[in-house]
């Protein structure tokens, strides 16, 4: 038995996740209204699994954890279909939280967003269940998240600007469906929470712009071959994979420029 209380004492102060959580309130309310209470059951189950793993890692490795597990649980719970088998969710969220976050040392040290890893796992492994569909979120449901995340600086504007610029470029070339993407709440949810996640995205300013450009480009391309949700999940996964490389590129360019300037 693992004593729960000492592990819970390792909870990090909650203020870091507050903008993200508050921003999810309206999409949650919207899906609750459209679908009913099943959402709460799913989120509760996902959260229980996540906290279980976090407590285990906190006990064994002395890691701290905060409310980021709640954000991850809500994001996954919102985006999977109402009829998804629970064992698949348990399996996927375990994969997402352990392989996507906890083995790296917990929140802040991971390279990918655990919800993105979870959803990619679901879309990839259970192709027949329709995990790529996602709910029909209206644009207005994401307005609070946009204001809160951008205002608190958690979603960097360079990433958003880069992504929109890429999509605009694609649509000028006649590829993809710009109004369809931009008018969908799902796309903005993915952009704000997955692509612009402060941990999984690039950490230098030029890197952030490049990260946004890459995400927009991939999301636009992937959306031509599949649904919006699978496009944003895999675009965010891919952009997150390349983020360290983009940062290294930005750092190298900076070093070269400075050494040229200062001799």
């Amino acid at each position, binding site marked *: 038995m693992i004593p729960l209380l000492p592990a819970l004492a390792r909870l990090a102060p909650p203020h870091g996740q507050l903008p993200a959580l508050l921003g999810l309130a309206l999409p949650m309310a919207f899906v609750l209204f459209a679908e009913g209470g099943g959402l709460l059951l799913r989120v509760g189950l996902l959260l229980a699994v996540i906290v279980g793993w976090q407590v285990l890692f906190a006990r064994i490795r002395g890691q701290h954890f905060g409310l980021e597990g709640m954000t991850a649980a809500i994001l996954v719970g919102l985006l999977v279909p109402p009829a998804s088998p629970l064992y698949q969710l348990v399996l996927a969220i375990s994969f997402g939280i352990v392989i996507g976050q906890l083995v790296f*040392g917990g929140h802040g040290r991971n390279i990918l967003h655990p919800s993105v890893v979870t959803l990619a796992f679901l879309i990839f492994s259970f192709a027949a269940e329709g995990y790529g569909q996602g709910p029909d979120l209206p644009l207005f449901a994401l307005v609070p998240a946009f204001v809160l995340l951008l205002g608190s600086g958690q979603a960097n504007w360079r990433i958003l600007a880069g992504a929109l610029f890429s999509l605009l470029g694609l649509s000028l070339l006649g*590829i993809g469906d710009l109004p369809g993407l931009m008018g969908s709440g799902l796309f903005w949810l993915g952009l704000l929470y997955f692509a612009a996640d402060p941990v999984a995205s690039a950490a230098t300013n030029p890197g952030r712009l490049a990260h946004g450009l890459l995400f927009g480009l991939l999301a636009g391309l992937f959306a031509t071959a599949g649904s919006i949700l699978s496009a944003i999940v895999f675009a965010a996964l891919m952009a997150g994979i390349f983020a360290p490389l983009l940062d*290294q590129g930005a750092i190298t360019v900076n070093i070269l420029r400075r050494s040229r300037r200062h001799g």
Partner: protein
Amino acid sequence: MIELFQRAIFEENLALSFFLGMCTYLAVSKRLDTALGVGVALILVQSISVPLNHLLHAHLLSAGALTWLGLPDVDLGFMRLLTFIGIVAGLVQVIEMLLDRYMPGLYRSLGIYLPLLAINCAIIGGSLFMVERQYDLAESAVYGVGTGIGWALAIVTLAAIRERLRYADIPKGLEGLGMAFIVTGLISMAFSAFVGVRVI
């Protein structure tokens, strides 16, 4: 042609979907600069060896290829593997000498892995896929460059992530190779998204 190029880089990536060339891939990806070096070396070897092997296969080795010498019944197909390995080994030798002469720093940091490129299964695999899929000369050239770029992209990405992982707090048992395997799995999952996506 563009489709073949794109497929060779992403969805049929030799490292991430066929898991070829893994020993070099995992061993040389600790630092970004050496990964970049071995990636460029592999692009070079691959873009020369696949079309060259195609020419040898089409005009010397395959059944009936020697008709132009008046020997229509000769089939040198059994020499294929041997010839391909010879070509690759020769190319690697030349690149090794060039690096030793012009880029001694990179030469030293690549160490044993540069000569080991001669038996890198991604390189020989590229040539064997070329034969199996019956690419023509132009397709072989595109396929060679594409698979080279794809493999280089994969190792450079992994190296950048591994450099970033210095700031991570990884469990003792997973440090080093264990984490490299996990990250490779995640990268490979991301690359699978390109299945069915066509730019043009």
